[in-house]
């Protein structure tokens, strides 16, 4: 999936601009650049696995497709972080970290953040939708689309 970035819903990045971005590799590029919630599916056994990896944990094939999920999900888990633990986060606490299960791939867990919501409203079981923070990669100039979540 190396085509143009699609016009998915957009949000600001939840964490500060100087907070680390992922190292982009061949296997994780679709997740971080597609502009849609994109999961790795084994071409041999059809297992969907996340995070993407060089080989399939079910059949060990190294041939994959990248499939677009609906972007609708459910909060599986949430914590509110109050202690910064790094100077770059000092102005951002308290912040939330969630684990979301996509409604169409309930066995997959995706770590992220819920944007623009009161901490008290982000509960286990809350329905969410994927939105994307567009960030230009400071090292390569590539446009990244970090999946974030909003309550629905």
């Amino acid at each position, binding site marked *: 999936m190396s085509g143009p970035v699609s016009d998915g819903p957009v949000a600001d990045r939840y*964490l500060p601009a100087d907070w680390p971005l992922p190292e982009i590799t061949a296997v994780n590029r679709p997740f971080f650049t597609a502009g849609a919630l994109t999961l790795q599916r084994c071409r041999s056994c059809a297992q969907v696995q996340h995070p993407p990896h060089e080989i399939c*944990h079910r059949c060990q094939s190294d041939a994959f497709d990248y499939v677009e999920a609906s972007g609708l999900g459910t909060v599986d888990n949430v914590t509110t972080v109050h202690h910064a633990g790094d100077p770059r986060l000092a102005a951002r606490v308290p912040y939330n970290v969630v684990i979301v299960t996509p409604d169409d791939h309930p066995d997959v867990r995706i770590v992220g953040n819920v944007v623009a919501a009161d901490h008290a409203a982000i509960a286990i079981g809350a329905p969410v939708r994927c939105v994307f923070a567009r960030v230009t990669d400071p090292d390569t100039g590539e446009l990244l689309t970090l999946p974030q979540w909003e309550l629905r």
Partner: protein
Amino acid sequence: MHGTTAITGIGESPYFKAGRSPHSAASMAATAVHAAIADAGLRVDDVDGIVTFHPDQHDSAQLWSWLGLGELRFSAKAWGGGGNSGASAVQIADAAVTAGYARNVIVFRSLHQGAEGRYGRYNQSARPARGEAFLVPFGAAMPVVKNALLIKKFMHQHGISQEALADIALASYFHAQRNPRAVMYGKPLTREAYHASRWIAEPLHLYDCCQESDGACAVIVSSAAQAPDLQQPPAWLLAGATGMEAGGGLWAFNDTAYPSGRLAPVGRQLWERAGVRPADVDVAQFYENFTGSTLIAISDIGFCPPGEVEAFVSGKNLHFDGGVLPFNTSGGNIAEAYIHGLQLMVEAVRQIRGTSTSQVPNARLSLFVAGPGTPPSSAVLLSAEAP
């Protein structure tokens, strides 16, 4: 296994709050290792192997020569996530001695968090790769955040309240008040102070988190042929176990164990090898990076179902004086010191010798559990009697 080896020597440096030790990690390692050799009544040249885990400050096979030790015959490092591997390292030493590759193997850990960076902080500039690429950019960077998520889900699934976390912290501080070596000696904790302490990452308060420490400790694993003739009563290695479920190593909370179960395969191995049941254990040291991790570990390894763990740890059930399962009797990671959990192995040996500051009367079976954070996890069971 089953009595082919024993822990014959233990040694420690003084323990400090992170950044307070005037000595380097190498210097503290030397203190702990030579204290353990002397404690066993061995000569320096009797020691011929070394095992460690998570050696971020030094290559232990190279450090060997600075420790002034003789001919090296065995060295290894336990894989895995940080403190989860502490009991694995002892199990590897046991396997090496049992196989005859070495006669007396040192297992040690030395850390100076003042020099190498505090474990509770992130402070990395490289872009996260592999599994971390799916955690760090979203703020799941510090260990406390990842563990808060595991613990939150475990509590949610099993209806566990904040009081169960408090009970773990309170038992640790209770025992630390009896241990002059503990960093938190002289600083008792009340339930009110626990609840009043600030949030770090919900559901974890300040007192739910282990300390950040400087210090070193070491144990010596010796062959059964030598152990009875050495200086100390042997702490016989009844069983060791390392493991995880199939799929337990998958990244970013997509492992099959989530949020619990990481120590279940370790428990199954351990009890089968030892030929005893959890209820037979007299005293236990659990690696508590965070209080709630211990709730997961207690149930995973087989002491009770997860839905019963809050009752299991309540009241004085974890106290050395009459508790159902005397727990972290030196104060543990939370209130003694965090030497990556290996200081819990030292305390497990003291319980067998009868020399703990919170001694369980007639302790015959003494357990050390490392985990359940990043798998694989591990455990070692010691016996006072030669099996």
